[in-house]
Protein backbone atom coordinates (compact mmCIF):
# COMPACT_ATOMS: atom_id res chain seq x y z
CA UNK A 1 0.00 0.00 0.00
CA UNK A 2 1.28 3.44 -0.92
CA UNK A 3 2.17 5.72 1.94
CA UNK A 4 -0.66 8.01 2.90
CA UNK A 5 0.27 11.64 2.85
CA UNK A 6 -1.89 14.71 2.79
CA UNK A 7 -0.97 17.47 0.42
CA UNK A 8 -3.14 20.52 1.24
CA UNK A 9 -2.43 22.12 -2.12
CA UNK A 10 -3.77 19.05 -3.96
CA UNK A 11 -7.34 18.53 -2.92
CA UNK A 12 -8.91 17.12 -6.08
CA UNK A 13 -11.02 19.61 -7.97
CA UNK A 14 -10.07 22.66 -5.91
CA UNK A 15 -7.42 23.93 -8.33
CA UNK A 16 -9.75 23.39 -11.28
CA UNK A 17 -12.57 25.35 -9.62
CA UNK A 18 -10.14 28.12 -8.66
CA UNK A 19 -8.66 28.49 -12.13
CA UNK A 20 -12.14 28.44 -13.63
CA UNK A 21 -13.20 31.14 -11.15
CA UNK A 22 -10.29 33.34 -12.22
CA UNK A 23 -11.14 32.80 -15.89
CA UNK A 24 -14.78 33.71 -15.23
CA UNK A 25 -13.68 36.82 -13.31
CA UNK A 26 -11.45 38.09 -16.05
CA UNK A 27 -13.13 36.93 -19.25
CA UNK A 28 -16.01 39.46 -19.15
CA UNK A 29 -13.68 42.36 -18.30
CA UNK A 30 -11.27 41.20 -20.98
CA UNK A 31 -14.05 40.98 -23.59
CA UNK A 32 -15.23 44.44 -22.62
CA UNK A 33 -11.77 45.90 -23.13
CA UNK A 34 -11.11 44.05 -26.39
CA UNK A 35 -14.35 45.24 -27.94
CA UNK A 36 -13.52 48.83 -27.01
CA UNK A 37 -10.81 48.49 -29.68
CA UNK A 38 -13.12 46.96 -32.28
CA UNK A 39 -13.39 48.87 -35.55
CA UNK A 40 -17.00 47.79 -36.08
CA UNK A 41 -19.94 48.38 -33.80
CA UNK A 42 -21.20 44.91 -32.93
CA UNK A 43 -20.06 41.96 -30.85
CA UNK A 44 -20.59 39.60 -33.76
CA UNK A 45 -18.02 41.00 -36.15
CA UNK A 46 -14.43 41.91 -35.42
CA UNK A 47 -13.28 44.62 -37.82
CA UNK A 48 -9.72 45.19 -36.77
CA UNK A 49 -8.03 47.25 -34.06
CA UNK A 50 -9.07 50.87 -33.91
CA UNK A 51 -9.18 53.77 -31.48
CA UNK A 52 -12.35 54.99 -33.14
CA UNK A 53 -14.57 54.56 -30.06
CA UNK A 54 -12.08 56.26 -27.77
CA UNK A 55 -11.94 59.23 -30.13
CA UNK A 56 -15.71 59.28 -30.38
CA UNK A 57 -16.10 59.16 -26.58
CA UNK A 58 -13.58 61.95 -26.09
CA UNK A 59 -15.30 64.08 -28.71
CA UNK A 60 -18.56 63.66 -26.78
CA UNK A 61 -19.03 66.78 -24.62
CA UNK A 62 -21.13 64.84 -22.09
CA UNK A 63 -18.35 62.29 -21.55
CA UNK A 64 -15.73 64.97 -21.24
CA UNK A 65 -17.62 67.04 -18.67
CA UNK A 66 -18.63 63.91 -16.71
CA UNK A 67 -14.99 62.80 -16.59
CA UNK A 68 -13.79 66.17 -15.36
CA UNK A 69 -16.60 66.32 -12.79
CA UNK A 70 -15.75 62.81 -11.54
CA UNK A 71 -12.10 63.75 -11.11
CA UNK A 72 -12.99 67.02 -9.39
CA UNK A 73 -15.35 65.34 -6.91
CA UNK A 74 -13.01 62.41 -6.28
CA UNK A 75 -9.97 64.58 -5.61
CA UNK A 76 -11.87 67.00 -3.34
CA UNK A 77 -13.56 64.17 -1.42
CA UNK A 78 -10.30 62.19 -1.12
CA UNK A 79 -8.41 65.25 0.11
CA UNK A 80 -10.96 66.19 2.79
CA UNK A 81 -11.69 62.59 3.82
CA UNK A 82 -7.99 61.77 4.18
CA UNK A 83 -7.32 64.89 6.24
CA UNK A 84 -10.10 64.28 8.73
CA UNK A 85 -9.40 60.52 8.75
CA UNK A 86 -5.74 61.15 9.60
CA UNK A 87 -6.76 63.34 12.53
CA UNK A 88 -9.30 60.77 13.70
CA UNK A 89 -6.74 57.96 13.41
CA UNK A 90 -4.27 59.97 15.50
CA UNK A 91 -7.05 60.54 18.02
CA UNK A 92 -8.18 56.94 18.32
CA UNK A 93 -4.94 54.94 18.30
CA UNK A 94 -2.07 54.60 20.69
CA UNK A 95 -3.86 55.75 23.80
CA UNK A 96 -5.54 53.89 26.61
CA UNK A 97 -9.16 52.94 26.02
CA UNK A 98 -11.65 55.65 26.89
CA UNK A 99 -15.40 56.01 27.10
CA UNK A 100 -16.94 56.75 23.74
CA UNK A 101 -14.19 55.07 21.77
CA UNK A 102 -16.61 52.46 20.47
CA UNK A 103 -19.02 55.23 19.50
CA UNK A 104 -16.30 56.88 17.40
CA UNK A 105 -15.43 53.55 15.72
CA UNK A 106 -19.07 52.84 14.91
CA UNK A 107 -19.60 56.36 13.52
CA UNK A 108 -16.50 56.15 11.32
CA UNK A 109 -17.30 52.68 9.98
CA UNK A 110 -21.02 53.34 9.65
CA UNK A 111 -20.90 53.97 5.85
CA UNK A 112 -19.52 50.43 5.44
CA UNK A 113 -22.53 48.92 7.20
CA UNK A 114 -25.56 50.86 5.98
CA UNK A 115 -26.85 49.80 2.53
CA UNK A 116 -25.96 52.46 -0.02
CA UNK A 117 -29.51 52.78 -1.27
CA UNK A 118 -30.68 53.75 2.24
CA UNK A 119 -28.04 56.48 2.60
CA UNK A 120 -28.82 57.63 -0.94
CA UNK A 121 -32.52 58.05 -0.22
CA UNK A 122 -31.79 59.74 3.11
CA UNK A 123 -29.47 62.25 1.41
CA UNK A 124 -32.01 62.82 -1.36
CA UNK A 125 -34.52 63.96 1.27
CA UNK A 126 -32.05 66.01 3.35
CA UNK A 127 -30.34 67.77 0.46
CA UNK A 128 -33.69 68.33 -1.25
CA UNK A 129 -34.78 70.39 1.74
CA UNK A 130 -31.45 72.22 1.98
CA UNK A 131 -31.48 72.99 -1.76
CA UNK A 132 -34.89 74.58 -1.39
CA UNK A 133 -33.86 76.65 1.63
CA UNK A 134 -30.58 77.92 0.33
CA UNK A 135 -31.07 77.84 -3.41
CA UNK A 136 -27.54 76.46 -3.71
CA UNK A 137 -27.38 73.72 -6.37
CA UNK A 138 -23.63 73.26 -6.77
CA UNK A 139 -21.24 70.32 -6.50
CA UNK A 140 -20.89 70.86 -2.74
CA UNK A 141 -23.58 68.28 -1.95
CA UNK A 142 -21.86 65.58 -3.98
CA UNK A 143 -18.47 66.40 -2.47
CA UNK A 144 -19.90 66.29 1.06
CA UNK A 145 -21.70 62.99 0.45
CA UNK A 146 -18.61 61.43 -1.17
CA UNK A 147 -16.36 62.69 1.63
CA UNK A 148 -18.56 60.99 4.22
CA UNK A 149 -18.49 57.52 2.65
CA UNK A 150 -14.76 57.83 1.80
CA UNK A 151 -13.77 58.47 5.44
CA UNK A 152 -13.68 54.80 6.59
CA UNK A 153 -11.67 53.79 3.52
CA UNK A 154 -9.09 56.50 4.25
CA UNK A 155 -9.15 55.80 7.99
CA UNK A 156 -8.46 52.04 7.95
CA UNK A 157 -5.00 51.99 6.26
CA UNK A 158 -3.87 55.06 8.24
CA UNK A 159 -4.91 53.45 11.52
CA UNK A 160 -3.22 50.17 10.52
CA UNK A 161 -0.01 52.03 9.79
CA UNK A 162 -0.16 53.95 13.09
CA UNK A 163 -0.72 50.78 15.12
CA UNK A 164 2.24 49.08 13.52
CA UNK A 165 4.52 52.07 14.11
CA UNK A 166 7.47 51.98 16.46
CA UNK A 167 7.12 54.43 19.36
CA UNK A 168 10.87 54.59 20.10
CA UNK A 169 11.66 57.23 17.49
CA UNK A 170 9.02 59.58 18.82
CA UNK A 171 10.16 58.97 22.40
CA UNK A 172 13.72 59.69 21.29
CA UNK A 173 12.64 62.97 19.69
CA UNK A 174 10.82 63.99 22.85
CA UNK A 175 13.88 63.05 24.92
CA UNK A 176 15.92 65.38 22.72
CA UNK A 177 13.56 68.21 23.71
CA UNK A 178 11.59 68.41 20.47
CA UNK A 179 8.18 69.92 21.25
CA UNK A 180 5.12 67.80 20.39
CA UNK A 181 4.40 69.69 17.17
CA UNK A 182 7.97 69.29 15.86
CA UNK A 183 7.99 65.64 16.86
CA UNK A 184 4.79 65.18 14.90
CA UNK A 185 5.97 67.19 11.90
CA UNK A 186 9.45 65.65 11.57
CA UNK A 187 9.01 62.15 12.99
CA UNK A 188 5.41 60.91 13.09
CA UNK A 189 4.19 62.42 9.83
CA UNK A 190 7.02 61.09 7.60
CA UNK A 191 6.61 57.62 9.14
CA UNK A 192 2.86 57.80 8.60
CA UNK A 193 3.06 59.13 5.03
CA UNK A 194 2.70 55.79 3.19
CA UNK A 195 -0.47 55.03 5.18
CA UNK A 196 -1.90 58.46 4.41
CA UNK A 197 -1.14 58.12 0.72
CA UNK A 198 -2.67 54.62 0.63
CA UNK A 199 -5.78 55.93 2.39
CA UNK A 200 -6.09 58.83 -0.05
CA UNK A 201 -5.85 56.46 -3.03
CA UNK A 202 -8.55 54.13 -1.70
CA UNK A 203 -10.76 57.13 -1.00
CA UNK A 204 -10.18 58.39 -4.55
CA UNK A 205 -11.05 55.01 -6.11
CA UNK A 206 -14.15 54.62 -3.92
CA UNK A 207 -15.39 58.09 -4.86
CA UNK A 208 -14.68 57.51 -8.55
CA UNK A 209 -16.67 54.24 -8.41
CA UNK A 210 -19.79 55.49 -6.72
CA UNK A 211 -23.04 55.17 -8.61
CA UNK A 212 -25.94 54.90 -6.21
CA UNK A 213 -25.42 57.85 -3.86
CA UNK A 214 -24.34 60.12 -6.73
CA UNK A 215 -27.41 59.15 -8.76
CA UNK A 216 -29.72 60.28 -5.95
CA UNK A 217 -27.82 63.37 -4.78
CA UNK A 218 -26.86 65.01 -8.09
CA UNK A 219 -28.81 67.97 -9.42
CA UNK A 220 -29.62 68.24 -13.12
CA UNK A 221 -26.57 68.31 -15.39
CA UNK A 222 -24.24 66.97 -12.68
CA UNK A 223 -23.54 63.55 -14.15
CA UNK A 224 -20.35 61.82 -13.11
CA UNK A 225 -18.81 59.18 -15.34
CA UNK A 226 -20.62 56.27 -13.62
CA UNK A 227 -24.04 57.96 -13.59
CA UNK A 228 -23.55 58.99 -17.21
CA UNK A 229 -22.86 55.33 -18.06
CA UNK A 230 -25.89 54.18 -16.09
CA UNK A 231 -28.03 56.59 -18.10
CA UNK A 232 -26.57 55.32 -21.37
CA UNK A 233 -27.26 51.69 -20.52
CA UNK A 234 -30.97 52.34 -20.89
CA UNK A 235 -30.48 53.29 -24.51
CA UNK A 236 -28.83 51.40 -27.32
CA UNK A 237 -25.37 50.35 -26.23
CA UNK A 238 -22.46 51.33 -28.45
CA UNK A 239 -18.80 50.43 -27.92
CA UNK A 240 -18.35 54.03 -26.78
CA UNK A 241 -19.36 52.76 -23.33
CA UNK A 242 -16.71 50.04 -23.63
CA UNK A 243 -14.14 52.75 -24.31
CA UNK A 244 -15.24 54.80 -21.28
CA UNK A 245 -15.22 51.65 -19.11
CA UNK A 246 -11.74 50.76 -20.33
CA UNK A 247 -10.41 54.18 -19.34
CA UNK A 248 -12.05 53.93 -15.91
CA UNK A 249 -10.65 50.42 -15.51
CA UNK A 250 -7.15 51.54 -16.48
CA UNK A 251 -7.29 54.34 -13.93
CA UNK A 252 -8.36 51.94 -11.14
CA UNK A 253 -5.69 49.35 -11.96
CA UNK A 254 -3.00 52.03 -11.99
CA UNK A 255 -4.04 53.42 -8.61
CA UNK A 256 -4.32 49.92 -7.12
CA UNK A 257 -0.90 48.88 -8.33
CA UNK A 258 0.53 52.01 -6.72
CA UNK A 259 -1.41 51.22 -3.54
CA UNK A 260 0.03 47.70 -3.33
CA UNK A 261 3.56 48.89 -3.94
CA UNK A 262 3.11 51.47 -1.18
CA UNK A 263 1.69 49.13 1.44
CA UNK A 264 3.84 46.11 0.57
CA UNK A 265 5.79 44.82 3.53
CA UNK A 266 9.48 45.14 2.95
CA UNK A 267 11.15 41.77 3.41
Amino acid at each position, binding site marked *: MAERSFEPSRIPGFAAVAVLAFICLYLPIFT*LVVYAFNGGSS*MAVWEGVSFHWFEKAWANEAVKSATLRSLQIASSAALIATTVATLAALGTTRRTAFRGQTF*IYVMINQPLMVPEIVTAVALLILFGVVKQWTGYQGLGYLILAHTAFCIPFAYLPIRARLEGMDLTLETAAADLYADPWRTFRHVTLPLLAPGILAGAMLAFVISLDDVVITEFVKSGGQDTLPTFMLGQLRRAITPEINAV*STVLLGLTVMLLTAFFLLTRKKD
Partner: protein
Amino acid sequence: MNGEEKARARSVRNAWALSAPALVILGIAASGPLLIILIYSFLSPGQYGNVSWAFSLEGWIGILYSKDIFDGTLQLADAHLTIFWRSVKLSLLTTLITFAVGFPTAWFIATRPPKARALWLFLITIPFWTNLLVRTFAINEVVRNEGLVNTVLIKLGLIATPLRMINTDFAVLVGMTYVYLPLMVLPLFATIDRFDMKLLEAGYDLYATRLQVLRRVILPIVKPGIVAGSILVFVPSLGAYVTPRVLGGGKNMMIGNFIELQFGQGRNWPLGAALSMTLLIVVMAALLIYVRTANRGGAGHG
Protein backbone atom coordinates in the same frame (compact mmCIF):
# COMPACT_ATOMS: atom_id res chain seq x y z
CA MET B 1 -6.72 65.67 40.70
CA ASN B 2 -3.22 64.25 40.45
CA GLY B 3 -0.91 64.59 37.46
CA GLU B 4 -1.63 61.19 36.01
CA GLU B 5 -5.37 61.77 36.02
CA LYS B 6 -4.88 65.18 34.43
CA ALA B 7 -2.77 63.68 31.65
CA ARG B 8 -5.42 61.04 31.06
CA ALA B 9 -8.21 63.61 30.89
CA ARG B 10 -6.16 65.62 28.41
CA SER B 11 -5.55 62.52 26.31
CA VAL B 12 -9.30 61.83 26.12
CA ARG B 13 -10.03 65.48 25.24
CA ASN B 14 -7.46 65.31 22.45
CA ALA B 15 -8.99 62.09 21.14
CA TRP B 16 -12.39 63.74 20.80
CA ALA B 17 -10.98 66.98 19.37
CA LEU B 18 -9.01 65.10 16.73
CA SER B 19 -11.99 62.91 15.80
CA ALA B 20 -14.45 65.80 15.75
CA PRO B 21 -14.10 66.93 12.10
CA ALA B 22 -14.67 63.37 10.83
CA LEU B 23 -17.62 62.89 13.20
CA VAL B 24 -19.24 66.16 12.09
CA ILE B 25 -19.03 65.24 8.38
CA LEU B 26 -20.34 61.73 9.06
CA GLY B 27 -23.09 63.13 11.26
CA ILE B 28 -24.29 65.47 8.51
CA ALA B 29 -23.97 63.20 5.48
CA ALA B 30 -24.19 59.63 6.81
CA SER B 31 -25.76 59.06 10.25
CA GLY B 32 -27.96 62.11 10.67
CA PRO B 33 -29.96 61.60 7.46
CA LEU B 34 -30.97 58.12 8.70
CA LEU B 35 -32.94 59.87 11.44
CA ILE B 36 -34.82 61.83 8.78
CA ILE B 37 -35.77 58.57 7.09
CA LEU B 38 -37.11 57.24 10.39
CA ILE B 39 -39.25 60.37 10.83
CA TYR B 40 -40.50 60.35 7.23
CA SER B 41 -41.61 56.73 7.57
CA PHE B 42 -44.25 57.91 10.10
CA LEU B 43 -45.69 60.73 7.95
CA SER B 44 -48.41 60.79 5.29
CA PRO B 45 -47.59 60.80 1.60
CA GLY B 46 -47.88 64.17 -0.14
CA GLN B 47 -50.00 64.49 -3.23
CA TYR B 48 -47.11 65.00 -5.65
CA GLY B 49 -44.42 63.07 -3.88
CA ASN B 50 -42.72 64.36 -0.71
CA VAL B 51 -44.71 64.16 2.53
CA SER B 52 -47.38 66.05 4.39
CA TRP B 53 -46.60 66.58 8.06
CA ALA B 54 -49.27 64.40 9.67
CA PHE B 55 -48.52 61.28 11.69
CA SER B 56 -49.47 58.08 9.92
CA LEU B 57 -48.61 54.41 10.04
CA GLU B 58 -49.57 53.95 6.39
CA GLY B 59 -45.94 53.78 5.28
CA TRP B 60 -45.26 50.83 7.56
CA ILE B 61 -48.57 49.12 6.85
CA GLY B 62 -47.95 49.62 3.12
CA ILE B 63 -44.92 47.34 3.30
CA LEU B 64 -47.12 44.26 3.49
CA TYR B 65 -50.63 45.44 2.72
CA SER B 66 -52.29 47.46 0.02
CA LYS B 67 -55.60 49.24 0.35
CA ASP B 68 -58.37 48.17 -1.96
CA ILE B 69 -59.24 51.24 -4.05
CA PHE B 70 -62.96 50.47 -3.97
CA ASP B 71 -63.86 49.48 -0.43
CA GLY B 72 -60.66 50.52 1.41
CA THR B 73 -60.02 47.10 2.99
CA LEU B 74 -56.47 45.93 3.52
CA GLN B 75 -55.12 43.04 1.50
CA LEU B 76 -51.74 41.40 1.41
CA ALA B 77 -49.79 43.10 -1.37
CA ASP B 78 -48.70 40.21 -3.57
CA ALA B 79 -46.49 42.41 -5.76
CA HIS B 80 -44.51 43.56 -2.70
CA LEU B 81 -44.14 40.03 -1.36
CA THR B 82 -42.84 38.88 -4.76
CA ILE B 83 -40.15 41.57 -4.64
CA PHE B 84 -39.11 40.69 -1.06
CA TRP B 85 -39.04 37.00 -1.87
CA ARG B 86 -36.95 37.64 -5.00
CA SER B 87 -34.50 39.79 -3.02
CA VAL B 88 -34.05 37.21 -0.26
CA LYS B 89 -33.93 34.26 -2.67
CA LEU B 90 -31.37 35.85 -5.01
CA SER B 91 -29.24 37.07 -2.09
CA LEU B 92 -29.18 33.61 -0.47
CA LEU B 93 -28.41 31.92 -3.78
CA THR B 94 -25.65 34.45 -4.46
CA THR B 95 -24.17 33.70 -1.02
CA LEU B 96 -24.34 29.93 -1.61
CA ILE B 97 -22.82 30.02 -5.09
CA THR B 98 -20.05 32.45 -4.14
CA PHE B 99 -19.22 30.12 -1.23
CA ALA B 100 -19.19 26.99 -3.40
CA VAL B 101 -16.83 28.70 -5.84
CA GLY B 102 -15.03 30.93 -3.35
CA PHE B 103 -13.94 28.25 -0.88
CA PRO B 104 -11.85 26.21 -3.36
CA THR B 105 -10.52 29.47 -4.80
CA ALA B 106 -9.45 30.81 -1.41
CA TRP B 107 -7.94 27.42 -0.56
CA PHE B 108 -6.05 27.39 -3.83
CA ILE B 109 -4.62 30.87 -3.21
CA ALA B 110 -3.67 30.09 0.40
CA THR B 111 -1.76 26.94 -0.57
CA ARG B 112 0.43 28.56 -3.25
CA PRO B 113 4.09 29.36 -2.48
CA PRO B 114 4.42 32.88 -0.93
CA LYS B 115 5.43 34.78 -4.10
CA ALA B 116 2.72 33.23 -6.27
CA ARG B 117 0.22 33.71 -3.46
CA ALA B 118 0.73 37.49 -3.47
CA LEU B 119 0.12 37.53 -7.23
CA TRP B 120 -3.09 35.43 -7.06
CA LEU B 121 -4.30 37.63 -4.21
CA PHE B 122 -3.65 40.73 -6.28
CA LEU B 123 -5.60 39.14 -9.15
CA ILE B 124 -8.63 38.66 -6.89
CA THR B 125 -8.48 42.23 -5.55
CA ILE B 126 -8.44 43.92 -8.97
CA PRO B 127 -12.02 42.91 -9.84
CA PHE B 128 -12.99 43.78 -6.26
CA TRP B 129 -11.90 47.39 -6.70
CA THR B 130 -13.04 47.71 -10.29
CA ASN B 131 -16.05 49.94 -10.76
CA LEU B 132 -19.23 48.01 -9.95
CA LEU B 133 -20.95 49.47 -12.97
CA VAL B 134 -18.12 48.47 -15.28
CA ARG B 135 -18.30 44.88 -13.98
CA THR B 136 -22.08 44.78 -14.27
CA PHE B 137 -21.76 46.14 -17.77
CA ALA B 138 -19.17 43.45 -18.58
CA ILE B 139 -21.69 40.77 -17.52
CA ASN B 140 -24.33 42.55 -19.56
CA GLU B 141 -22.07 42.11 -22.60
CA VAL B 142 -21.87 38.39 -21.84
CA VAL B 143 -25.56 37.61 -21.29
CA ARG B 144 -27.44 39.99 -23.60
CA ASN B 145 -29.11 38.72 -26.76
CA GLU B 146 -26.28 39.83 -29.05
CA GLY B 147 -23.75 39.12 -26.29
CA LEU B 148 -20.77 36.80 -25.98
CA VAL B 149 -22.61 33.61 -24.98
CA ASN B 150 -25.27 33.88 -27.66
CA THR B 151 -22.79 34.89 -30.36
CA VAL B 152 -20.57 31.91 -29.60
CA LEU B 153 -23.44 29.44 -29.36
CA ILE B 154 -24.95 30.61 -32.64
CA LYS B 155 -21.60 30.49 -34.43
CA LEU B 156 -21.09 26.95 -33.17
CA GLY B 157 -24.53 26.10 -34.55
CA LEU B 158 -25.81 24.90 -31.16
CA ILE B 159 -28.76 27.28 -31.14
CA ALA B 160 -30.59 29.11 -33.94
CA THR B 161 -32.12 31.97 -31.99
CA PRO B 162 -30.46 33.75 -29.06
CA LEU B 163 -31.25 32.47 -25.57
CA ARG B 164 -33.09 35.13 -23.65
CA MET B 165 -31.08 35.68 -20.50
CA ILE B 166 -31.04 39.45 -20.04
CA ASN B 167 -33.88 40.90 -17.92
CA THR B 168 -34.38 37.66 -16.01
CA ASP B 169 -33.70 36.67 -12.41
CA PHE B 170 -31.00 34.40 -13.80
CA ALA B 171 -29.09 37.36 -15.25
CA VAL B 172 -29.32 39.20 -11.92
CA LEU B 173 -28.04 36.10 -10.10
CA VAL B 174 -25.11 35.71 -12.50
CA GLY B 175 -24.33 39.41 -12.17
CA MET B 176 -24.40 39.44 -8.36
CA THR B 177 -22.34 36.26 -8.11
CA TYR B 178 -19.78 37.81 -10.43
CA VAL B 179 -19.72 41.14 -8.65
CA TYR B 180 -19.56 39.81 -5.06
CA LEU B 181 -17.31 36.75 -5.46
CA PRO B 182 -14.15 38.60 -4.30
CA LEU B 183 -15.98 39.60 -1.09
CA MET B 184 -16.36 35.90 -0.28
CA VAL B 185 -12.84 34.87 -1.28
CA LEU B 186 -10.95 37.53 0.71
CA PRO B 187 -12.17 36.70 4.26
CA LEU B 188 -12.04 32.95 3.51
CA PHE B 189 -8.46 33.36 2.37
CA ALA B 190 -7.62 35.28 5.54
CA THR B 191 -8.76 32.41 7.81
CA ILE B 192 -7.32 29.60 5.67
CA ASP B 193 -4.01 31.44 5.45
CA ARG B 194 -3.67 31.49 9.24
CA PHE B 195 -4.55 27.81 9.51
CA ASP B 196 -1.82 25.34 10.44
CA MET B 197 -1.76 22.78 7.65
CA LYS B 198 -0.04 20.27 9.95
CA LEU B 199 -3.41 19.70 11.60
CA LEU B 200 -4.61 18.20 8.35
CA GLU B 201 -1.76 15.77 8.23
CA ALA B 202 -2.43 14.83 11.83
CA GLY B 203 -6.04 14.11 11.00
CA TYR B 204 -5.06 12.23 7.91
CA ASP B 205 -2.39 10.21 9.71
CA LEU B 206 -5.07 9.09 12.12
CA TYR B 207 -6.86 7.52 9.13
CA ALA B 208 -9.58 10.11 8.71
CA THR B 209 -10.89 10.22 5.16
CA ARG B 210 -10.60 13.40 3.10
CA LEU B 211 -14.26 14.14 3.70
CA GLN B 212 -13.88 13.65 7.44
CA VAL B 213 -10.84 15.93 7.50
CA LEU B 214 -12.83 18.55 5.60
CA ARG B 215 -15.83 18.29 7.93
CA ARG B 216 -14.16 17.78 11.30
CA VAL B 217 -10.91 19.74 10.95
CA ILE B 218 -11.14 22.35 8.21
CA LEU B 219 -14.72 23.61 8.48
CA PRO B 220 -14.70 24.38 12.23
CA ILE B 221 -11.48 26.34 11.91
CA VAL B 222 -12.48 28.41 8.88
CA LYS B 223 -15.98 29.03 10.26
CA PRO B 224 -15.30 32.70 11.15
CA GLY B 225 -14.18 33.25 7.55
CA ILE B 226 -17.32 31.57 6.23
CA VAL B 227 -19.53 33.75 8.41
CA ALA B 228 -17.63 36.92 7.46
CA GLY B 229 -17.72 36.09 3.74
CA SER B 230 -21.41 35.22 3.83
CA ILE B 231 -22.30 38.48 5.58
CA LEU B 232 -20.11 40.51 3.22
CA VAL B 233 -21.92 38.96 0.24
CA PHE B 234 -25.45 38.73 1.66
CA VAL B 235 -25.67 42.30 2.95
CA PRO B 236 -24.82 44.16 -0.28
CA SER B 237 -26.81 41.61 -2.32
CA LEU B 238 -29.93 42.36 -0.30
CA GLY B 239 -29.48 46.09 -0.85
CA ALA B 240 -28.37 45.74 -4.48
CA TYR B 241 -29.56 48.48 -6.79
CA VAL B 242 -27.28 48.73 -9.82
CA THR B 243 -27.09 45.05 -10.77
CA PRO B 244 -30.86 44.35 -10.80
CA ARG B 245 -31.46 47.66 -12.57
CA VAL B 246 -29.01 46.91 -15.39
CA LEU B 247 -29.47 43.14 -15.72
CA GLY B 248 -33.02 42.64 -14.43
CA GLY B 249 -34.74 45.34 -16.42
CA GLY B 250 -37.74 47.17 -15.04
CA LYS B 251 -39.73 44.08 -14.05
CA ASN B 252 -37.25 42.07 -12.01
CA MET B 253 -36.96 44.55 -9.18
CA MET B 254 -35.23 43.94 -5.88
CA ILE B 255 -35.82 45.89 -2.65
CA GLY B 256 -33.31 48.60 -3.65
CA ASN B 257 -35.14 49.35 -6.88
CA PHE B 258 -38.50 49.14 -5.12
CA ILE B 259 -37.33 51.81 -2.66
CA GLU B 260 -36.23 54.05 -5.52
CA LEU B 261 -39.60 53.57 -7.21
CA GLN B 262 -41.39 55.02 -4.16
CA PHE B 263 -39.34 58.22 -4.42
CA GLY B 264 -39.85 58.39 -8.19
CA GLN B 265 -42.99 57.35 -10.04
CA GLY B 266 -44.53 55.71 -6.96
CA ARG B 267 -44.69 59.06 -5.14
CA ASN B 268 -45.03 57.36 -1.79
CA TRP B 269 -42.13 58.69 0.26
CA PRO B 270 -43.34 57.32 3.63
CA LEU B 271 -43.52 53.81 2.15
CA GLY B 272 -40.06 54.29 0.65
CA ALA B 273 -38.77 55.47 4.03
CA ALA B 274 -40.38 52.54 5.86
CA LEU B 275 -38.90 50.09 3.34
CA SER B 276 -35.46 51.70 3.82
CA MET B 277 -35.75 51.31 7.60
CA THR B 278 -36.78 47.67 7.18
CA LEU B 279 -33.78 46.97 4.95
CA LEU B 280 -31.54 48.72 7.46
CA ILE B 281 -32.93 46.67 10.37
CA VAL B 282 -32.44 43.36 8.52
CA VAL B 283 -28.87 44.33 7.60
CA MET B 284 -28.08 45.40 11.18
CA ALA B 285 -29.47 42.08 12.49
CA ALA B 286 -27.21 40.19 10.07
CA LEU B 287 -24.19 42.25 11.20
CA LEU B 288 -25.05 41.62 14.86
CA ILE B 289 -25.06 37.88 14.22
CA TYR B 290 -21.68 38.29 12.58
CA VAL B 291 -20.17 40.24 15.47
CA ARG B 292 -21.46 37.66 17.98
CA THR B 293 -20.12 34.71 15.98
CA ALA B 294 -16.80 36.44 15.43
CA ASN B 295 -16.40 37.17 19.14
CA ARG B 296 -17.29 33.62 20.12
CA GLY B 297 -14.90 32.25 17.49
CA GLY B 298 -12.13 34.48 18.77
CA ALA B 299 -12.64 33.41 22.37
CA GLY B 300 -12.84 29.73 21.43
CA HIS B 301 -9.53 29.63 19.61
CA GLY B 302 -7.63 32.31 21.48
